[in-house]
């Protein structure tokens, strides 16, 4: 019997996890429904198919999708346990996501124009911002959703990707941003590209803050600041930006009620445990209820947490899969981020290098921000946990980013 190559061993683990998970889910709900089994098989099939394709067609780094598939599996299983309907939708989004993954992979690889589209990225972002202002609907405290018929989608997710592409194309060709001798009402204007770049970046963050997307604004700042560092910006520039952000943050704290609420709740959620502190304290109860191995799937009460299917799904995982389960998720995200950084290190072309770095940083910081908020390590912000939280926009843009990263990893071989 031919021994199958080593790459497939971890895949068995993912398949096994899905089998155990869906088996439990099958017995969890009475009456027993066969759709559960079918759903499990669909997930397994999607994952195996994609993984085999990646290996056989030599599509670059093998580990990126592998790790993501484990995260997806844990996410779908937990979502199914929480709400069957959401799980169905998530699986639909998963299929879309995987298709987008392949699409963006080939698009990035074959079309040679991605480094030249700086103005496009800015333009599309501006359009998205405007659309949200004009047509945005208030959902659960943030004005950042656009509804088209039955589907609603979050443009801020797409803007994250666009910003990374903007960063990279700026680095590639900074002069595109320079303003030389433009006449504005008789005054001559001159601005260095670095200044314009900074201004535009802060505009992105400001727009997001106005939409009350504080988490994404913070995320963008983290990516922006580390980008400045990696580009070798001088110490005064770094300090100036840091000070500017600090002032902005303090202003936000004092001027915006929402930010004050979040910081106060982070410091002492017990004071207003009935209302403002309710979510985070319920999250802590859930995390504590599981012990190290968890209560077991279906035996805990993660449904006591509001928004458990999106922001707080990690707490549900900690409750039913234990602290070890939670640690596993953190480790998985870490290895994933490491892999992204490695791709960025090995690829030679500066544009690709920056895009890969941006995507890796985006995933890494986003994960840190949301996990930190959910365990009360830092204040809570309303962003999603990539690949695990329920959400079409989050999942699809996650796969688009993954596709781009995958394409760059192919280029680095």
């Amino acid at each position, binding site marked *: 019997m031919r021994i199958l190559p080593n790459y497939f061993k971890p895949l068995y683990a993912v398949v*096994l996890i899905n089998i155990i998970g869906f088996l439990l889910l099958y017995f969890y709900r009475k009456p027993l429904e066969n759709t559960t089994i079918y759903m499990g098989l669909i997930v397994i099939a999607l994952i195996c198919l994609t993984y085999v394709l990646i290996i056989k067609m030599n599509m670059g780094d093998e*580990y990126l999708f592998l790790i993501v598939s484990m995260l997806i599996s844990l996410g779908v299983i937990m979502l199914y346990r929480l709400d069957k309907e959401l799980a169905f939708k998530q699986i639909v989004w998963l299929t879309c996501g995987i298709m987008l993954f392949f699409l963006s992979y080939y698009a990035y690889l074959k079309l040679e124009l991605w480094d030249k589209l700086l103005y496009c990225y800015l333009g599309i972002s501006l359009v998205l911002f405007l659309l949200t202002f004009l047509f945005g609907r208030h959902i659960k405290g943030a004005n950042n959703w656009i509804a088209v018929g039955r589907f609603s989608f979050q443009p801020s997710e797409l803007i994250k990707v666009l910003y990374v592409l903007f960063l990279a194309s700026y680095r590639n060709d900074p002069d595109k941003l320079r303003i030389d001798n433009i006449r504005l009402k008789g005054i001559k204007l001159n601005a260095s590209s670095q200044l314009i770049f900074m201004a535009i970046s802060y505009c992105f963050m400001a727009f997001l803050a106005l939409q009350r997307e504080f988490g994404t604004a913070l995320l963008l700042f983290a990516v922006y600041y580390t980008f400045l560092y990696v580009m070798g910006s001088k110490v005064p520039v770094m300090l100036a930006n840091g000070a500017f952000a600090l002032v902005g943050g303090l202003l936000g704290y004092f001027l915006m009620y929402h930010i004050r609420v979040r910081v106060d709740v982070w410091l002492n959620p017990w004071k207003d445990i009935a209302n403002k502190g309710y979510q985070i304290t319920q999250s802590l109860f859930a995390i504590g209820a599981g012990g190290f191995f968890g209560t077991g799937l279906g035996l805990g009460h993660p449904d006591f947490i509001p928004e458990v299917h999106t922001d707080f799904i990690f707490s549900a995982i900690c409750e039913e899969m234990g602290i070890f389960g939670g640690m596993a998720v953190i*480790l998985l995200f870490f290895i994933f981020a490491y892999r992204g950084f490695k791709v960025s290190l090995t690829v030679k072309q500066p544009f690709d290098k920056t895009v890969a770095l941006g995507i890796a940083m985006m995933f890494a910081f986003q994960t840190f921000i949301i996990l930190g908020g959910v365990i009360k390590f830092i204040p809570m912000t309303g962003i999603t946990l990539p690949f695990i939280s329920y959400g079409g926009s989050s999942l699809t843009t996650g796969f688009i980013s993954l596709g781009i990263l995958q394409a760059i990893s192919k280029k680095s071989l």
Partner: protein
Amino acid sequence: MFEILSSLLKYIFTTVIYFFIFSVIRLIYLDIRSINNRLETAPGKHPYLKLINRRDSLSFKVEESYILDNNKTLGRSSKNDIAIQDPYLSSRHAEFIIKGDSYYIKDLESTNGTRVNGMRLADDMVRLDNGDKIQVGQLTFIFVKEY
């Protein structure tokens, strides 16, 4: 009944997740090691093994060349200096030995044997000269020694 099932399976569940994590880490580690074994120094300083086969015709990962700057073992097991997942290799298949200025190959009682220039090795060490063809498993290497 479900409660018992879930309570028991949770331990297995956690174990499988960690097994996954560790096997991924291990694979990555091996990846890094095999890159380090590639040609780092300028060619010509040490002899090396050059792969003849077409890499994309093989279902396992193998490098274009392996530098022989030290005694090296070759085989399927990851404990070897040159670890290749060729199913036709034994876990410890062969060893390359340096004595002074001379390079030798020795078969380590492998199942499918080691051939040098078509001749299957017995128990003894055989000296390698520039241009010798070495066959192990499905792979064919040329021993390159350029000084």
